[in-house]
């Protein structure tokens, strides 16, 4: 057994075991971790299959972004809701596994009895090396023959972004929940009450320019910038 085959089988075994673990774990967070393991192994298999770029992308996108997002959502969702409820529908499980087994058997038969025949292309190991490497080959192919699919994919990603923004927007019907508590009482009778004409008064006041655009007003006297209750009354009467 060549080392290559051994490693491949090892990686496959881990991938399959962790995939099975993913669907059997009760805690979704554990499932997610199992899935991370599967994806990392899949990425390793990609490297074995001479797809280094895809391996890196697989890890960056799937494990680095998608699964982090899934974990993010898992943590946002109420922890009480997280555990899986296996007790619900036993028939569902039986049918599910049954169908899975049948399909696996069918595909196994197909794999073993049929062979796929196709013309070998130019991108064997030497061909790729001659072109400068896996990334160079993908880049050249991608931007020569696949421009339209790239544009379409870009459009899909844009649509997804907009859709996500739409889905993630705050509820409209619900008033923004953090609402300011209103001022309970305003004691305008306070002899040193807030001056309604504070702002005009400030212009003439002794202003100390602080950092940026902020000013401090320097009061020399206790009666500056304040209106006493009597004055307020007088003002009211005169109007």
């Amino acid at each position, binding site marked *: 057994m060549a080392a290559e085959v051994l490693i491949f089988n090892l990686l496959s075994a881990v991938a399959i075991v962790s995939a099975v673990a993913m669907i059997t774990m009760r805690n979704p*967070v554990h499932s997610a*971790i199992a899935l991370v393991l599967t994806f990392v192994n899949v990425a390793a298999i990609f490297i074995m299959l001479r797809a280094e*770029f895809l*391996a*890196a*992308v697989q890890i960056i996108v799937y*494990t*680095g972004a998608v699964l982090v997002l899934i*974990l993010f959502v898992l943590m946002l969702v109420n922890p009480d809701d997280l555990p899986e409820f296996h007790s619900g529908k036993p028939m569902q499980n039986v049918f599910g596994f049954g169908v899975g087994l049948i399909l696996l058997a069918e595909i196994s038969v197909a794999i073993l009895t049929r062979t796929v025949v196709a013309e070998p292309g130019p991108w064997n190991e030497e061909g790729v090396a001659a072109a400068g490497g896996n*990334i160079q080959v993908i880049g050249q192919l991608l931007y020569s023959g696949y421009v339209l699919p790239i544009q379409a994919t870009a459009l899909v990603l844009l649509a997804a972004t907009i859709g996500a923004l739409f889905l993630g927007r705050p509820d409209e019907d619900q008033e923004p929940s953090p609402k300011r508590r209103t001022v309970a009482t305003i004691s305008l009778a306070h002899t040193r009450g807030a001056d309604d004409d504070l702002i005009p008064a400030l212009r003439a006041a002794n202003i100390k320019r602080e950092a940026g655009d902020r000013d401090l007003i320097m009061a020399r006297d206790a009666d500056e910038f304040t209106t006493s209750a009597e004055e307020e009354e007088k003002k009211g009467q005169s109007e």
Partner: protein
Amino acid sequence: MDANLLSSYIFAVIVLNVLLGLMAYMTYIERKVMAAMQDRIGPNRTGPVGLLQPIADGLKLLVKEDIIPKHADRRIFLLAPLLSFVLAPVAAAVIPFGDSITVFGHEVNLYVADINVAVLYFLAIGSMGVFGIILGGYASANRYSLLGGLRAAAQVISYEIILGLSLIGVIILSGSLSLVEIVNQQSETLTIGPLQLPNWFILSQPLAFIIFLIAAVAETNRAPFDLPEAETELIGGFHTEYSGFRFSFFFLAEYISMIVISLFAATIFLGGTDGPIQDGVWWLALKACIFLFFYIWLRTTVPRFRYDQLMGLAWKVLLPLVLINILLTGFIRLWGLGML
């Protein structure tokens, strides 16, 4: 097993050990530098001028009681710090510490691996590193930890994008994802009129460098982007409930990440091992030290961002800037190739 592979293994072991040793003394240096900046003395009791302090700290953490909260998700709680700790130094594998040297008649490359997707590999490992933090935050069954984990997830995803995009400019210019290749390109000389400058990418990609620097600080969860652990708000965030050696794993991982990302930045933008006289690993170390000093300096100087400001900075300021940078670089590159 061929000799090449063997020498790689040996070199990997050396790098790993050096990193761990560096990391230990990184904490010492940080404390000393911070002390100097803050008008105090810093560790000075353990050993001469406190040089044994990191070892003492390590011992202390080793023998400390290992507390697992009752409601914690045990398995993940144990797994998370390991994940952080293991993934942090792995990224150093692609950093070239110099050309090959001859040891006992063997040609030994001064890098663990020269893979053609090195930059992507680095980003991939970086994006994996956050799992430790998120899972640690989740598993602690603590509100502060959960919030820390949530913050870490959002922050790392956002800044991962910025980090990756800021490197695109360099990749466009160098035309390669291999760090060895990138370093080799930077050792060339750039002649601008009478000036003879090294072709470091900091000169051709200054904007990308600044953005990379900011994103790198955010990526390693260091001040002023240390929101996931913000001790004054979240009391340590994801590692609130960790103690003893498990805590030290997170702690170590953070410092190793800092060192690795400093090495990476030095490699990508500052020419790696290239220097004015006698190229070699010491230049890389010196450049990395500049970054590390910058990290410490930042920590002592600036206040912490708020969560929304952090996200706003990433998406509203840095992302447009970095996209503009890519666009400009692309045009200049095409122009340089005579395709425009």
